[in-house]
C-alpha cells in the first residue's frame, strides 16, 4: 500500500482517471459500487431530504413546504415532550453504558481463564444478546406488571416503591436501564474478553518480577492495552443507547419518551407535529455524528476491521 500512494500528485479528476487505468482498482470500484449506491439512495439522500424539510413548514402530504428558517428547531426545544426525550435519553445513555462497562469489565476479568463450564457460560452470555429487544421489553414488562410481576411484587414487599412501576415515569426509566444492562452487559463482556485474550501473559510475568501489585498491573498494563477494545465497546453502546426506540416503546407502552419515540410519534402518528419531528430527526442524526466524532478523533480510536 505504501508504494502506491507516493507518486506525483495529479489533480482530483486526474487521480480518478489514473485509478481506472489499473485493472485491479477498476475491479475494486465495480465491486464496491452496488453497496455504495444502496447506502447513498436509502440513507444519504433521505437524510438530506430530512434536513431540507426541517427548515420548512410542511405537512406529510406535501413534497416541499415554505421556508421558515430555524423556527421548527426553536419550537422543538420549547416542546415539553422533547425536553422529556432529551432528559430520558441522556440519563439512559450515560447510566446504562457506564453500568454495562463496569459490570462487563468485571465479568471479562473474572472469566479470562480456563475453567470447567466455560462454554456454558459463553452460551448463557449470548442468549440475552441474541433475541429481539422487543421480546426482552415484553418480558420485563411482564415482570414489572403490578398484578403479576415478580419484580414489582418484590420491590413492593421490600418497601422500595410506593406505586406500581409501570405507572411512574422515573421508575420506568430505571426499569428500562435495568433491562438494557441485563441484555447488553454480556455483549460488552465478550468484546472486552476478546481484547483481554490478546494481551500476552509474559507481560504480567515481567511486571510481577518487577514487584508490581495487582492494582498497578490493572492500571498500568490491562487498561492501556485494552484501550482499543474499550473504545469500540463504548462507541457501539453509546450510539445504540442514543437511538433507543424498541425498549421504551414496548416496555413502557409508549409512555416513556426518547429521541426516537419523539420523532416516530411526530412524523408517523401526529400530523400536527410533523415539522418538529423533522427537526428532531436532524437533531438526533447530528448529535450521533458528534458523539462518533468525539470517540474516533478525540480518543484516537482506529476504525478498520481486522487491524491495519
Amino acid at each position: 500500500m505504501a508504494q502506491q500512494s507516493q507518486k506525483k500528485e495529479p489533480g482530483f479528476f486526474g487521480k480518478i482517471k489514473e485509478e481506472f487505468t489499473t485493472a485491479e482498482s477498476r475491479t475494486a470500484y465495480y465491486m464496491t459500487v452496488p453497496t455504495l449506491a444502496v447506502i447513498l439512495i436509502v440513507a444519504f439522500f433521505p437524510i438530506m431530504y430530512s434536513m431540507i424539510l426541517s427548515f420548512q413548514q410542511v405537512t406529510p402530504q406535501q413534497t416541499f413546504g415554505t421556508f421558515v428558517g430555524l423556527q421548527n428547531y426553536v419550537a422543538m426545544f420549547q416542546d415539553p415532550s422533547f425536553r422529556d426525550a432529551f432528559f430520558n435519553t441522556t440519563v439512559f445513555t450515560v447510566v446504562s453504558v457506564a453500568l454495562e462497562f463496569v459490570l462487563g469489565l468485571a465479568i471479562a476479568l473474572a472469566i479470562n481463564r480456563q475453567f470447567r463450564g466455560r462454554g456454558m457460560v459463553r452460551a448463557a452470555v449470548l442468549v440475552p444478546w441474541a433475541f429481539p429487544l422487543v421480546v426482552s421489553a415484553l418480558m420485563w414488562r411482564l415482570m414489572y406488571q403490578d398484578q403479576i410481576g415478580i419484580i414489582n411484587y418484590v420491590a413492593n414487599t421490600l418497601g422500595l416503591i410506593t406505586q406500581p412501576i409501570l405507572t411512574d415515569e422515573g421508575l420506568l426509566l430505571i426499569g428500562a436501564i435495568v433491562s438494557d444492562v441485563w441484555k447488553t452487559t454480556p455483549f460488552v463482556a465478550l468484546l472486552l474478553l476478546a481484547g483481554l485474550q490478546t494481551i500476552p501473559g509474559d507481560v504480567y510475568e515481567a511486571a510481577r518480577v518487577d514487584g508490581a501489585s495487582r492494582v498497578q498491573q490493572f492500571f498500568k498494563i490491562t487498561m492501556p492495552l485494552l484501550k482499543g477494545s474499550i473504545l469500540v465497546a463504548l462507541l457501539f453502546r453509546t450510539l445504540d443507547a442514543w437511538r433507543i426506540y424498541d425498549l421504551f416503546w414496548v416496555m413502557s407502552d409508549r409512555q416513556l419518551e426518547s429521541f426516537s419515540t419523539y420523532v416516530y410519534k411526530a412524523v408517523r402518528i401526529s400530523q400536527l407535529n410533523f415539522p418538529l419531528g423533522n427537526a428532531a430527526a436532524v437533531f438526533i442524526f447530528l448529535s450521533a455524528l458528534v458523539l462518533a466524532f468525539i470517540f474516533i478523533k478525540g480518543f484516537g480510536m482506529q476504525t478498520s476491521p481486522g487491524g491495519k
Partner: protein
Amino acid sequence: MAAATSSGSGNLWRSVAFYAFIAFFLLVALFPLLWVFKMSIITRAEIFASPPTILPNTLTGTSYETIFSDARFQRAILNSVIVAGVTTVICLFLGSIAAYAIARLRFRFKSPFLTLILAIAFFPPVAIIAPLFVQFSQAGIINTYASLIIPDVVFALPLTVWLLVAFFKELPFDLEEAAKVDGATTLQAFWKVIVPLSAPGVFTTAILTFIFAWNEFLFANTFAFDISVQPVTVVIPQFATIYTVDYGAQAAAAVVVTIPLVILVLIFQRRIVSGLTAGAVKG
C-alpha cells in the same frame, strides 16, 4: 491460572468463590428467561397467585394453544422468515463483493468508503423514516415486504461487510496469485477460491445478519400496517393489548420467538463469538 487444578486451602476458597460468582452470574443472566418460561406453562390462577410461586405447580399448555391457534401469530412468523431471509441473501451478495475489494484489492478511495459504511452502523434509523415513508408511498411499495427489506439491507450491510472483511483478510495472499497464474480473473479468483475457503466465516456472517434482520422493529413498525406483512417484532407488542390480561399467552409468545434464536446460539456459539469479536479486538 486454572482455578480447577490449583491446590492448597487458599486456592480452594478462591476456586469456590469463583464458581459461586459464575453461578450467580448465570442465575442473573437466565432468570428473566426462566421466569417468563414458567409463566407460559402455568395456569392463570397460579400466574395471579400472591405471593408468587417460585416453582411451577399446575402445568398447562393452554397459553401455547392460544398462541399457536392465532392466525396472526403464524403469519407473523412466516413474514419474519421471509423478510430476514431475503435481507440476509441480498446482504451477503452485496457485502461479499464489497468486502473482497476492501480486504484484498488496492484502491485509493478505500478508507472514505470504509468510513461511509461505518457511519451507517451508527446512523439513527429514525432520522430517515419520514422521507422513506414518502418515497415508498410514491413508489407504491409501502406496506409490502420490499418496504421492510430495503432499509433492513442498508442497516445490516455494515455488519455484513465488517465481518466479511475480517474473515477475507485471514486467508493468505498468494491464493489469488496462484489462481491468476492459472489464468483466472480477479472475479473468478474471488468466487472460486476465496468464497469457498472462507465458507465458515461467510456462514457466521449469515447467522449474525439473519439475527439482526429478524430483530428489526422500527422500520417494520413504520412501513407495515397489515397483518399480511407485519413480522413478529411488530405483532408481539400488540399481544399486550389483544390478550390484555392473558399474561400466560404473552409469555408463551415471547418464549416461542426466543427459542429458535436460543437454539441457533447454542449450536453456533463458538462461531458467533469469533464473528462478534472479529475486528473489534485489534480496532
